[in-house]
């Protein structure tokens, strides 16, 4: 049994190196960027963290900003799991796997962003040895993220492997995990929000609305990435993604982004109407403070992109793929800025003692970021590359598969999707 599983893994490994010319180009570009990022990280490791723009005043920067964003993307897998498993929405059933594969890739990215932010990554194992649980909020984050990764790896791995073995998956081995994963997805974002709002010394973060804002913006940007990914999949492979799936995802994004805006308005009102001590950081972010305007263009760009994207989604034009993709891309960038530079950085400015020390990421930081992002895309591409032939029945344990030859549609292997629908 182990040998069969290892054979399966080996076949997947080989398959990930085979594809069209476009596939090779894509993978080559991603590999190059990943390696450049690795080089930049080595520079940081060897020269010290001074090569970043971080300082004693702004001690968390671009890396943690990206971490926050990509954890949100992972949580968005729940947005597909809920309709399928709780509401029995059949159109999306086979897409759940893609959403969970996206979750796996984005969690890996988040963990990598944490590792590159650590001053002593060689001590990563200390988290296992001296885990200050349950006192430190960061330990909750570690459990939350790794648990979510394990859950999604198990669910996807199990469903894909049973499809490969041409047998029906046993409900008990994945349904309870799926249900846990739904709650766990919310909890990853909650715990992350509590990382921030659990610190009394940073008034900007001392807001109850951070957790709902993180959840709402995650559920806007996550399905957006999935829409784009599914569009690319339907264009580059022979896997058919039904139109209804795009429309359902679009609806999810609409509502989540509308909720995100509502919460943003709520936060802005609270900050600026009463003009409390908290307002200094918000003022720095949106209007500039004492002649420093570092983040102002960022946040307004983000809000404009989100607003335009939202408006497009509410018009019938978004039924056409081109507009839909543009709106999604805009919102992904907008949420990335809002969650990253717009949430992590302003908390440090002004400092607890009232100083304004601005933060600007260095080129090295950007390269490490690009490298990790490219690596995440690489992982996701490989996962999808391997999953599609398995789901369509072409890659199965009892038959050889030569991807170079188009064998035509094979009989569909019994998968969880079919089983769920019955």
């Amino acid at each position, binding site marked *: 049994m182990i040998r069969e599983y290892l054979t399966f893994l080996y076949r997947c490994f080989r398959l990930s190196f085979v594809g069209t010319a476009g596939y090779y180009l894509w993978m080559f570009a991603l590999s190059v960027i990943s390696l450049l990022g690795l080089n930049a990280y080595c520079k940081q*490791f*060897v*020269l*010290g*963290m*001074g090569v*970043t723009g*971080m*300082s*004693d005043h702004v*001690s*968390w920067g671009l890396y943690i900003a990206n971490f926050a964003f990509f954890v949100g993307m992972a949580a968005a897998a729940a947005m597909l799991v809920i309709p399928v*498993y*709780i509401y029995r929405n059949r159109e999306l059933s086979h897409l759940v796997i893609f959403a969970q594969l996206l979750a796996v890739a984005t969690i890996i990215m988040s963990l990598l962003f*944490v590792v590159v*932010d*650590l*001053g*002593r*990554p060689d*001590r990563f194992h*200390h*988290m296992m*040895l*001296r*885990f*200050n649980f*349950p*006192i*430190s*909020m*960061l*330990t*909750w984050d570690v*459990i939350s993220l790794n648990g979510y990764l394990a859950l999604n790896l198990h669910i996807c791995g199990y469903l894909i492997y049973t499809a490969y073995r041409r*047998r*029906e998956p*046993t409900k*008990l081995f994945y*349904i*309870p995990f799926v*249900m*846990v994963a*739904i*709650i*766990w997805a919310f909890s990853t974002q909650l715990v992350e929000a*509590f990382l921030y709002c*659990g*610190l*009394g*010394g*940073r008034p900007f973060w001392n807001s109850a609305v951070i957790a709902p804002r993180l959840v709402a913006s995650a559920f806007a940007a996550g399905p957006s990435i999935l829409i784009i990914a599914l569009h690319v999949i339907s264009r580059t492979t022979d896997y058919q993604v039904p139109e209804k799936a795009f429309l359902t995802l679009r609806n999810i994004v609409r509502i989540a982004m509308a909720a995100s805006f509502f919460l943003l308005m709520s936060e802005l009102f609270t900050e600026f109407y009463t003009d409390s*001590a908290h307002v200094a950081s918000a003022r720095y972010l949106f209007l500039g403070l004492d002649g420093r305007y570092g983040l102002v263009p960022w946040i307004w760009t983000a809000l404009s992109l989100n607003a335009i994207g939202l408006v497009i989604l509410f018009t019938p034009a978004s039924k056409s793929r081109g507009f839909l993709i543009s709106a999604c891309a805009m919102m992904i960038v907008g949420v990335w800025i809002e969650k990253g530079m717009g949430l992590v950085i302003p*908390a440090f400015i002004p400092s*607890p*003692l*009232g*100083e304004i020390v601005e933060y600007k990421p260095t080129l090295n930081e950007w390269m490490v970021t690009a490298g990790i992002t490219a690596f995440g895309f690489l992982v996701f591409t490989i996962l999808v590359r391997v999953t599609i032939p398995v789901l369509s029945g072409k890659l199965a344990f009892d038959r050889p598969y030569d991807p170079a030859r188009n064998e035509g549609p094979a009989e569909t292997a019994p998968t969880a999707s079919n*089983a769920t629908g*019955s």
Partner: protein
Amino acid sequence: MNARTSSQRTPKSGSDAHPPIDTSRRGFLKAGAVLTALTVGGKSLASDGADGASKLSQGRMGVLVDLTRCVGCRRCEWACNDANDNPHGKLEECDDQSVFASLRRPRTDQFCVVNATRNPKADPSPTDPPIFTKIQCMHCEYPPCVSACLVGAMQKSPDGPVTYDASKCIGCRYCMMACPFERLTYEYDRRFTPRIRKCELCSHRTHDGKLPACVEICPVEALQYGKREDLLRVAHERIAAHPDKYVDHVYGESEGGGTSWLYLSARPFEQLVDVGLPRLPDKSPAERTEHIQHAIFKGAAGPLGIAAILTTLHFLTRKGGHA
């Protein structure tokens, strides 16, 4: 119980059979029992109070800083560097008053700094002396940095100081986020082995019965080392004896849940925020957050409980026994 349901049970055979799920009354009762057990178990786990608060010893030590006595000689800075193997020049170089032109913060090679603020009257005369304030790690009673550290590198020792164990630190800098006084510094420019750097109340000296270096060298006795409860008593006695000389408030008695470094001042502390004494509520953030975490998330009771409910609902609401 429905006799038909029991006869429809398919025996387990190979990997294709799923365990039969019973949607009859018995199934519901079983599910209910599981849920109840989980809820009760979860509640009992959650009922523990906050156990993160450190066990503070009655005789824990602190330092009383009388800002009316400080003359800005900066010898404490020199002594601190000398005692902690930080680079420093000759003692006479401390007389350089030009450093007071700008506000300074603790650095990786300077754990304590003295800042000067002009006597904030409407029309300050050049002869008005500035107010000098020495700042360093406050060694809080309920340190947020200790609560934040995920590997336990920051520890509150029962006799007062908050210590840092560089051998445990992974460099995540979450402690720096948590410190409401902005006293922690990080060695960004050090390759391979960067550390957090801060005042540690000269634990290496006090264990040998010596005074902290800054306290020992202060020529005007602005710094006094002793038991925190004694220092508080002394501070309030001083205020009572000279009510015109001191503001009736001991900074650090309750700020942020209380700190080991206590301050007396002639000027209201609101005027000293810039130099490093921020306004803080009376409770440490760490106390509040630990209590919440323990109550809600103990043993992941919350998430798992809801997951159990959803799983049960899923199995109960299937149509016709299939899922």
